[in-house]
């Protein structure tokens, strides 16, 4: 796999440089860190929102930094959770005294690093709360394991918690609505080709010409089942089926996200969307809003995920609230 990079070991630094120069009016980099914050951070009186994780999921997470969404995003090395010292810098940079909420995707590494940062921040007198997103229904939610993974549904947590913080919600209120989103959001994905970590130089797994990986993670980790490539309609059916088995969406108002994993043409995402919408209509669900595009990618992996979020009036209002984040303008 060819990469348009300079040095595989420096991709994160180079990317951050390119990101900050692209959006100089809205974001800034904390010097000597891989932390991107709102230019106006800390926002006086506002609860600070910090998320992040390994790099390679762009536009996540820095693309969601902006008014109405995150205050800071911490970028780790590719597919590697950022370290506690970096997360701590982010927390300190966005805390205005109203406390900070960490939005963590449920991976052992992310949880441990963010937790350690939270402990350090609390030791410095900052109020920190955290929520852990685990929307991926591909993985069983068992108390004997580390549980389900966090994938594209995380973007809805950023958006809605961000809107709550922006309108002045307290740390507990922001945390509560983030948890409400987490309870009501489910996702699942499929990959038709692997991705290559720049420093690894070879694909994370191999797929035959007629195979796909169902229940794929967003780090090139293998999915849960390998099978013959199916049609867009079949894929839409399988992913939504799995989601409905996990959470009952009957008669709900839902937000839909069809997320490209990196290399999938937008054309294909729309084709999948067409079927997803038909399925939801069939089942009597009411689609409130649809998002089609790349929101939580896995480098140049081909494939997509489907995310459904059950909405009540509060969530609708917060989903619709303005955001100036480069990757989620609304």
């Amino acid at each position, binding site marked *: 796999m060819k990469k348009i990079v300079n040095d595989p070991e420096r991709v994160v630094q180079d990317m951050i440089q390119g990101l900050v120069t692209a959006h100089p009016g809205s974001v800034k980099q904390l010097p000597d860190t891989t932390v991107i914050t709102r230019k106006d951070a800390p926002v006086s009186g506002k609860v600070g929102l910090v998320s992040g994780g390994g790099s390679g999921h762009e536009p996540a997470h820095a693309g969601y930094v902006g008014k109405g969404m995150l205050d800071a995003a911490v970028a780790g090395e590719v597919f*590697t959770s*950022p370290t*506690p010292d970096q997360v701590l810098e982010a927390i300190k940079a966005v805390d205005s005294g109203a406390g900070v909420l960490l939005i963590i995707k449920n991976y052992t590494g992310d949880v441990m690093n963010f937790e350690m940062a939270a402990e350090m921040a609390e030791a410095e007198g900052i109020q920190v709360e955290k929520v852990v997103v685990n929307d991926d229904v591909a993985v069983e939610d068992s108390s004997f394991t580390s549980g389900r993974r966090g994938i594209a549904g995380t973007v809805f947590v950023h958006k809605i918690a961000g809107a709550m913080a922006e309108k002045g919600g307290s740390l507990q209120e922001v945390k509560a609505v983030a948890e409400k989103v987490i309870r009501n959001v489910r996702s699942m994905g499929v990959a038709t080709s692997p991705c290559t970590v720049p420093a690894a130089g070879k694909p994370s797994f191999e797929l035959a010409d007629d195979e796909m990986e169902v229940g794929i993670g967003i780090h090139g*980790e293998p999915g*849960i089942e390998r099978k013959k490539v199916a049609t867009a309609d079949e894929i839409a059916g399988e992913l939504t089926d799995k989601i409905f088995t996990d959470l009952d969406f009957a008669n709900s108002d839902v937000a839909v996200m069809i997320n490209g994993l990196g290399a999938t043409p937008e054309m294909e995402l729309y084709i999948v969307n067409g079927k997803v919408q038909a399925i939801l209509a069939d089942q009597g669900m009411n689609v409130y809003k649809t998002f089609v595009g790349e929101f939580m990618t896995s480098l140049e992996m081909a494939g997509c995920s489907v995310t459904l979020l059950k909405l009540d009036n509060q969530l609708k209002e917060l989903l619709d609230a303005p955001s100036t984040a480069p990757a989620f303008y609304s």
Partner: protein
Amino acid sequence: MEIFQVEHARKWMKATNERIQEKKQELTELDQAIGDGDHGINMARGFREVMTKLDGETYQHVADVMKDVAMTLMSKVGGAAGPLYGTAFLKLSMAFKGQDVDYPLFTKGMEDAVAGVKQRGKSEVGEKTLVDVWSAVLEKLQENDHFDGSLMLDTAKAAMENTKETMATKGRAAYLKERSIGHLDPGSVSSFYLFESLAGVIREGV
């Protein structure tokens, strides 16, 4: 070896770094099979930084070496391995603090380290993680009463190899369930290199 000294600690880290750099790709490939393919990259980056750090410092106590190792790994490795290795060395450092590290103290340090790793990772022996290797080494240290390089090497190796046959229930490999069987756990392999290096230092003596 009677007392584990600063020079031993340095040699340990140097040997570990060499092994990790040499095995960077192997570790990454193991992680590609059942994880996300970054373990070798992360460990290599971390231990390279450890060497840079140690080479620039002078130390009075082993505890101080362990602390710098801990802090460096914690802030340079990331992922799951960073906090776990970081915690392990931090616990060693805390246990050793200001003291000469004889066999009982080393063993005490390892007890704290393993407890710390288990707590940080919410994991137990048998979940196909580096806890398997660390716990096995600890157990033999507890059963014995003097440093024994060969025993440590054999123990670490057996525990590492044993991860191949188990099913992962923690870490990224857990998502694969049965499909994780038949693959070595990358963190256990890097831990094996760590104890293999320590065993070498022990056998060479002072």
